[in-house]
């Protein structure tokens, strides 16, 4: 136990004297993550607002058939322009977001009281670019439809509500914290990624780097057991990663108090008491990452080789997020025991301000602890290999 503490202290001292490592872990990352999310969120909000508020330019095919409709649209901030020769190609080529085509029989049908045909040309595979425009147009056309329909009923002496057997109201039960957006979806992944590979530099330096600098062989000639040595290194890596995460979360909170509330989604701000819960949620991932990195670094022959595994490790915490994107599922208890997936769910719940039951904490932390012990055992076996120190 003494040796674990000795190794732990030495590795942290060594790490804190590495200016580049400290700069990246405690300054660059904590600044980059909040900036990225705040930037994304602001950008998203601004784009949405622009699309809703700006004058909509709408190319229309067959303008001459429906002058009244177009005049009505003009009073609702839509500027009608001439349509290109091939509307489908123009939309596909992204020169226009949507084009309205008015059927040549529109005026005739209108006068006869038959449904007059309109066609909206748009590309549903580009919801981010044209989704808001299309929704706005549909809303306007629906409103015109209802308005004229109601007038026709009134002209025939019928109350418009006769044609409205249902009145659908909706009540959104989301709390302000549970509103979801892109940036919030990214926060769990970024947190898990930082937790998992944030200690890369330290872990690699403490094992592969130690071997490269040729200081591992003398270390293994001391009475300290190899289990004690790796435990000290793993704990140092985990402590450093936690510190980096704490700095990131604090910066994240600070950043969102500076941004005016109407410029970003308020749901991104993390309440102070949630910080502690978030750290506890990701603790198993931090330890798992430190252990996996130490095992990998013991296995790799050099710094370079160890860092070659990084892309693979970055991919792991992404899996549950990807899974949830294609198959959004209800949280079930067993999921909390699955590494990354469980933490992902718990992070979202903490951010939404939901309560986490004691047995759920136990499940997540317990499953994490078991996995850490298993990988730790593997790392210890790797440390007992003769090739570890005797590379020459």
């Amino acid at each position, binding site marked *: 136990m*003494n*040796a674990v503490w*000795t*190794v732990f202290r*030495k590795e942290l*001292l*060594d790490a804190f*004297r*590495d200016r580049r490592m400290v700069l990246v872990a405690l300054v660059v990352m904590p600044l980059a993550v909040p900036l990225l999310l705040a930037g994304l969120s602001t950008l998203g909000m601004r784009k949405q607002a622009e699309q809703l508020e700006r004058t909509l330019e709408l190319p229309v095919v067959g303008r001459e058939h429906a002058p009244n409709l177009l005049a009505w649209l003009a009073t609702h901030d839509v500027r009608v322009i001439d349509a290109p020769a091939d509307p489908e190609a123009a939309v596909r080529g992204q020169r226009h977001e949507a084009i309205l085509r008015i059927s040549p029989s529109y005026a005739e049908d209108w006068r006869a009281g038959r449904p007059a045909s309109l066609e909206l040309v748009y590309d549903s595979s580009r919801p981010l670019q044209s989704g808001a425009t299309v929704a706005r147009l549909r809303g306007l056309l629906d409103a015109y439809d209802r308005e004229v329909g109601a007038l026709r009923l009134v002209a025939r002496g019928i109350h418009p509500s006769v044609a409205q057997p249902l009145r659908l109201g909706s009540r959104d039960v989301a709390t302000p914290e549970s509103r979801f957006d892109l940036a919030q979806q990214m926060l769990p992944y970024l947190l898990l990624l930082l937790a998992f590979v944030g200690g890369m530099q330290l872990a690699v330096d403490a094992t592969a780097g*130690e071997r490269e*600098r*040729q*200081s*591992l*062989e*003398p*270390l*293994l*000639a*001391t*009475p*300290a*057991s190899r289990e004690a040595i790796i435990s000290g290194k793993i704990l140092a890596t985990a402590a450093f990663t936690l510190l980096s995460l704490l700095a990131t979360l604090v910066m994240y909170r600070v950043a969102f108090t500076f941004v005016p509330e109407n410029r970003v989604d308020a749901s991104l701000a993390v309440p102070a008491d949630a910080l502690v819960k978030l750290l506890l949620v990701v603790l198993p991932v931090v330890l798992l990452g430190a252990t996996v990195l130490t095992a990998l670094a013991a296995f790799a022959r050099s710094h370079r080789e160890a860092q070659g595994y990084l892309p693979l490790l970055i991919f792991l915490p992404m899996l549950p997020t990807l899974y949830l994107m294609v198959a959004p599922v209800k949280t079930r208890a067993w999921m909390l025991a699955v590494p990354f997936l469980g933490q992902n769910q718990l992070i979202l719940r903490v951010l939404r301000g939901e309560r986490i039951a004691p047995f759920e904490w136990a499940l997540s932390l317990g499953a994490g602890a078991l996995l850490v012990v298993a990988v730790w055992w593997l790392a210890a076996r790797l440390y007992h290999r*003769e090739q570890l*120190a*005797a590379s*020459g």
Partner: protein
Amino acid sequence: MIEVIELRKSFATRTGRVTAVDGVSFRAADGEITGLLGPNGAGKTTTLRMLYTLMQPESGRVLIDGHDPAARPDEVRRRLGVLPDARGLYKRLTARENIAYFGRLHGLDPARIDERVARLADALGMREILDRRAEGFSQGERTKTAIARALVHDPRNVLLDEPTNGLDVMTTRSLRGFLRELRAEGRCVLLSSHVMQEVAALCDRIVVIARGRVVARGTPDELRERTGEASLEDAFVRAIGSDEGLLA
């Protein structure tokens, strides 16, 4: 006291199994400096690594003060001070911190570590570099720090793999003086070298190793006598059967 009995070790390589140590036996007594002399690749480093528990012998036995490394690795490591061929320091730590780290791993308390650091710094002439970071140390300063680190726990047996490798003349001279002091204190000093003059100048007993086997042993005088050569160098060449690997 170090006893080595019929030690054997082989490695799997791409071209097949290579026997690095092939039945090596010798004894290094307390109060003496024993030299393992042999060309590069003769099996000296592998032999030493089995002594300090980094490698397991395939067969044969090692006894350090009567303790078997296979049975009591921690006890053996406590009784050994080891300067391996790989002697890297932690560059961001000072010489003192490097030495103290190993002192704590040996279970020494801070007061004892301070006392040992002071004594070793005097003996090795490294007082002025104690509180400098190891980054930018010269080869000699690195070796001194590594030796102090290896001896911080005051071990009875001292193993040094090519201790004067890369050192200048003055540092080599002071290192030899230091090793003689260790001998005078009654310690068992075992060093390996491929430099004949080094072994001749320092060692009470020489064990000549070539291709994993002991090919000759004795005091420098005995070696000269037995081979009938006037110089130790010629005796050495005759003992290992060729002069390959001697031009380092």
